[in-house]
């Protein structure tokens, strides 16, 4: 492609990555591939984080709080100087769209791997960006472009556009300061609310109004531009599956876009980028209505979270492209060389609990094993050989086993991406990838993501940005996966096979595989008598239910020892066969916990003798200390983090006990209300001394 004279070309030898987590790891990965040294920055809390170990060098830029570390421009600039980095990659979030930081880098002679200060500023303001877009001939949402200061103006403009309208904060983002109004009354109310919210959230209460698009899809165009004026748009990303304006699933290409629409959107995106003299990677976001009419939303002047789906269908490494552009190199390909290869799908895996209104969860990743391409291929090679042969799995994460997910930073654990020949293949791969993704220790949304992979509207491609709200939230929230009878039998067969293997391993000294193993398995409150017996060949087990069902499992992996994933090819009595990937999470004396289709199930496993005698076992009695927080050790109560009457959530800090000069944080064992404080700071504690009491669960439920 054409090179523009006057553009300085220089090879970058060391990059400081001004970010944390998965995107820092992601940038390190490409930099290493290109032979460029990397510097990671970290806050005091992140000293041992994965992103630090991925880089060649690392440097602390401040305390835990983001505003004092990852957003601390002077410290980061100092870190760049101290480490001699020549360029800085901002990732996404934090300083990625901070024009002041980009300007400071420029002033220091440091290459900011991203667009120019001008482009960041021009696209950073929602109103200004719309004006530029309109000038560039980009199709915009009908509305008033400009600031509205009074209620009367809002009403006038809203009536001109025609309801429904959306009132938005100029500085807005993440759904804050946004209100939909279907009539004058709602417009007045929305004006007041948005203004207050915008003021509180952004310190900027300027508002504007635009047409509200019903059943909208969120589809965006990734582009890459060099410093020589070459701009290429890449296949679109469909990001319509959102929850409260946060993307949950993304895919490329969109199941909805025709080549004509793609071309139209792409060309308009390029026009906009050209208008602001854009270079580096950028994304132009559009809303697309049911008539496939697109409307400009905004332009993101950074690498986006969901960039991997574009990478997989375009075959490009976008971070590499950004670095090349920053080095002053012209793009090595032209628009007509861009093709769409297959289909990519991304799931955002969050530390949140879908069963509790998607509340963020914190804690330690006690067990953490990412799915792999080899593993997923192994599972699918019998049932879907074509999908297995060409399928790819990619997991972009910034964590590893034993990492702590804290409330200080983003609760995203990883992005799980699959790539197949078509949409159905990508979905098949995603199912297995989710099923073999071992995450234990905190609540996560794999159950919900897995449910989405079987959701009829998602499967048909009939999606819009309100899908989760309509299909789940408005129906009382996500209530969990309910396995069918056949699925329950699959799980029972797996549980039986695992028990057989454990019995086999325990008697290994005699080298005789156990003959038929009769078991009574309990699942979801009902008992099932099954017999597990060795099948025709060594790794085949037949599981027969007393009520007539059968499963034959060709086991490839037992889920014991180094791997927690049980893999088998299951033949059912109805002639159907499928790959079963079930995680063995925990094994007790009389039961085991499995994760099946993203959801944990406890399966009781008793011998017939045990099952017969189980009737005499007393019901477990809740200890009288169940409603109390007791000191686990002798020591001194240093502090209490709660007061009488406080509502606490599971995992919340309640008290700190110092014993042997060590500070031990005691956390809430469950959601509860503190009913009484038995000790105060400074008190000496013996083991099992009651520190505070919770309301009895019934009372708490009644008051809720």
């Amino acid at each position, binding site marked *: 492609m054409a090179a523009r004279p006057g553009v300085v070309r220089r090879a970058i030898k060391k990059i400081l990555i001004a970010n944390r987590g998965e995107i820092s790891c992601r940038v390190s990965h490409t930099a290493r591939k290109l032979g460029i040294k990397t510097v990671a920055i970290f806050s005091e809390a992140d*000293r*041992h984080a994965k992103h630090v170990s991925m880089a060649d060098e690392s440097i602390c830029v401040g305390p835990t709080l983001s505003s004092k570390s990852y957003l601390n421009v002077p410290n980061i600039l100092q870190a760049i100087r101290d480490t001699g980095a020549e360029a800085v990659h901002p990732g996404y979030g934090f300083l990625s769209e901070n024009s002041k930081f980009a300007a400071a880098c420029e002033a220091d002679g440091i290459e900011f791997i991203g667009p120019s200060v001008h482009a960041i500023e021009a696209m950073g303001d929602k109103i200004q960006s719309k004006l530029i877009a309109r000038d560039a001939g980009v199709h915009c949402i009908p509305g008033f472009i400009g600031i509205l200061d009074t209620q009367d103006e809002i009403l006038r403009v809203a009536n001109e556009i025609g309801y429904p309208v959306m009132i938005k904060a100029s500085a807005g983002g993440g759904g804050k300061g946004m209100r939909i109004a279907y009539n004058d009354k709602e417009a007045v109310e929305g004006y007041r609310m948005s203004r207050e919210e915008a003021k509180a959230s952004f310190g900027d209460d300027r508002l504007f109004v635009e047409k509200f698009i019903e059943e909208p899809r969120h589809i965006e165009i990734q582009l890459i531009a060099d410093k020589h004026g070459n701009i290429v748009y890449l296949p679109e990303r469909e990001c319509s599956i959102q929850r409260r304006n946060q993307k949950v699933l993304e895919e490329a290409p969109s199941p909805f876009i025709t080549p004509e629409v793609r071309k139209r959107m792409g060309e308009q995106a390029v026009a906009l980028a050209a208008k602001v003299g854009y270079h580096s990677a950028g994304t132009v976001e559009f809303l697309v209505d049911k008539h496939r009419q697109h409307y400009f939303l905004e332009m993101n002047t950074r690498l986006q979270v969901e960039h991997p789906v574009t990478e997989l269908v375009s075959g490009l490494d976008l971070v590499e492209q950004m670095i090349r552009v920053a080095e002053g190199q012209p793009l090595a390909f032209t628009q007509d060389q861009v093709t769409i290869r297959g289909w990519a799908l991304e799931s955002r895996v969050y530390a949140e609990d879908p069963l509790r209104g998607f509340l963020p969860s914190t804690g330690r990743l*006690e067990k*953490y*094993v990412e799915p792999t391409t080899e593993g997923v291929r192994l599972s699918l090679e019998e049932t879907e050989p074509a999908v297995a042969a060409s399928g790819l799995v990619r997991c972009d994460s910034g964590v*590893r*086993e*034993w*990492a702590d997910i804290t409330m200080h930073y983003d609760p995203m654990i990883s992005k799980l991406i699959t790539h197949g020949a078509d949409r159905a293949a990508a979905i098949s791969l995603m199912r297995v990838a989710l099923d073999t993704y071992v995450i234990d220790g905190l609540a996560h949304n794999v159950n919900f993501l897995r449910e989405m992979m079987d959701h009829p509207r998602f499967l048909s491609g009939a999606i819009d940005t309100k899908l989760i709200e309509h299909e789940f939230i408005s129906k009382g929230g996500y209530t969990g996966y309910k396995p069918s009878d056949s699925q329950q039998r699959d799980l029972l067969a797996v549980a039986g096979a695992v028990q057989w293997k454990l*019995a086999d*391993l*325990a*008697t*290994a*000294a*005699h080298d*005789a595989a156990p003959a038929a193993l009769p078991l*009574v398995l*309990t699942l979801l*409150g*009902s*008992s099932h*008598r099954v017999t597990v017996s060795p099948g025709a060949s060594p790794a085949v087990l037949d599981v027969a239910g007393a009520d007539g069902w059968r499963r034959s499992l060709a086991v490839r992996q*037992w889920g*014991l*020892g*180094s791997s927690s994933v049980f893999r088998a090819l299951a033949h059912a009595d109805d002639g159907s066969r499928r790959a079963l990937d079930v995680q063995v999470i925990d*094994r007790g*004396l*009389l039961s085991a916990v499995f994760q099946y289709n993203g959801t944990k199930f406890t399966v009781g496993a*008793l*011998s*017939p*003798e*045990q*099952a*017969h*005698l*189980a*009737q*005499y*076992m*007393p*019901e*477990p*009695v809740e200890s009288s200390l169940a409603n109390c927080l007791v000191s*686990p*050790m*002798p020591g001194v109560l240093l502090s209490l983090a709660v007061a009488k009457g406080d509502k606490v959530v599971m995992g919340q800090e309640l008290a700190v006990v110092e*014993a*042997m*000069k*060590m*500070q*031990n944080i005691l956390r809430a064992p469950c959601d509860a209300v503190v009913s009484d404080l038995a000790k105060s700071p400074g008190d000496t504690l013996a*083991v099992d001394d009651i520190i505070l009491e919770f309301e009895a669960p019934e009372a708490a439920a009644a008051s809720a």
Partner: protein
Amino acid sequence: MAPANTWKLATTCAMQPIRLVQQLLVRHSAGSHTAAAPRVLARFGIGAALAAAPAPVAARQLVTCASTNAARGATSRRSLASMAAEVVDDDEDETHTLPAQQQLTPKLIARRRVHELEQQALNGGGAERIATQHARGKLTARERISLLLDSGSFRETDMIKAHRGSDFGMDKKRFAGDGVVTGQGKVFGRTVFVCSQDFTVLGGSLSETHAEKICKVMDRAMLVGAPLICLNDSGGARIQEGIASLAGYAEVFQRNVLASGVIPQISVIMGPCAGGAVYSPALTDFTFMVRDSSYMFVTGPEVVRAVTNEDVTAEALGGAQTHSRVSGVCHGAFDNELEAMAGIRRLLSFLPQSNRHKAPVLRSLDPRERANLDCLDSVVPDDPNQPYDMRAIVERIIDDGELVEIQPEYARNIITGFARMEGRTVGIVANQPRELAGCLDIDSSVKAARFVRFCDCFEIPLVTLVDMPGFLPGTVQEYNGLIRHGAKLLFAYAEATVPKVTVITRKAYGGGYITMSSKHLRGDANYAWPSAEIAVMGAKGAAEIIARGKDKDQATREYETKFANPIMAAERGFVDGLLRPSDTRRVICEDLELLQGKQLKNPAKKHANMPL
């Protein structure tokens, strides 16, 4: 008070809960079984009448009991109750038809008598007492055996042995089996010997013959070399026999002692265990209890009240909670009998048959080199005063994360337990920085010492993980003999000749450093993580002494720089090497493989004089 008296009182106390159950039963059988209540309330006067009740009667009562339980319990149990009914129906079908009355010959009479006695032995104390036992969440002696052993493997000894006493009307209360079921069977295909006391027969009381039965299987276990498991559920000595029953205990104790270190001996307390009866479990290697249905004490609450004026319940005095958390008498508590029997099976899977056998080697699915251990490299916090969970480290190093802890609730500042490395049993001893900073105190020293000695007896290699700031200071500790008790662990490690692998993860200070399987105590492979601090004492304390009157902070920093690391220990060879934490599993596996050929003998002696 004379011992005999004490025991008698203890036995009386032990009977206390039975009254509760009797009341329960009265309510329970208010419907169709009104006749049962007075019989039960007549305490042990049930005699042969009910025990010999025809099988169908017993069956019906079992079914009634089962369905009542199920109705009261969760609906999910309904299917289990109906299963019980099926099983009982089977029994009914199997009722034997006896030879015709008219052709009675002496042979036939004997055969019939044998059949009757066997039926009596199988029926234990009879349906009503069995129902009482079940109502308390307890199983019968035979049911427990069926849970403990591989299905169908039990072979009984002395099934119809009966007592010879005649005083106090005992000649009218003779039961085939005499209150204890004994024999042998298999656990995961390996032989074990079992004694299971039957509370439904004369309260499981120990008579001369009852003791003889136990002694017989103990002798056989010793002869062939196989573990012995005693399931205790007994009201105590059979006082009607006087000194004869007392002598029975003594015979058992003597055998417990001689078997110690030869075969693994495990006691499970599944009901009352009071007075002299407690000493057999105390002499065995491990004592387990069942929560809420078992208790052990030398003297019961009534004697305690009379002698010391203390008002205490049986549960508080000697329940599972007390003994597993406070006294350390109990090595593990289970929620119910089902779990208890499954737990004992699991424990046995780690143990050798005897000191003449090697511990079983199981096929392991966990490779020596595993991918997910990088997290160990950053597990030890930078701040030396910040705790972390040593158990989580242990679980990552061992096979499959399966650690069977011994005394998990007692002296939690030290972890002891069995695990496997590449399928071979190891004994794990590890300081737990989460509790009391992992220091050694009286309780943790004694807990670990006994565990180390068990492993040494049975050739189980020891893997020790050290993060220990020293022995716990204070008058409580010193007055109670920390010196004496701390010496037990030192003695145990120094005496042990099994393979010993030690990894210092963080603090190893002072005498505690030496004690925790150090190089100086014949440690075979001693390693330190980079985070290790090995020194004679903590920097602050050392600075107090070194820098009297001078700049203490400066001295502290100097001392820290010089000694709060593993370098000096490595330079002297006190550790064999510095170990990257993520390599720990692999290195320990390699060492254990190497050390299989270890040969080390202590000087010949009668026995050492361990500080007790």
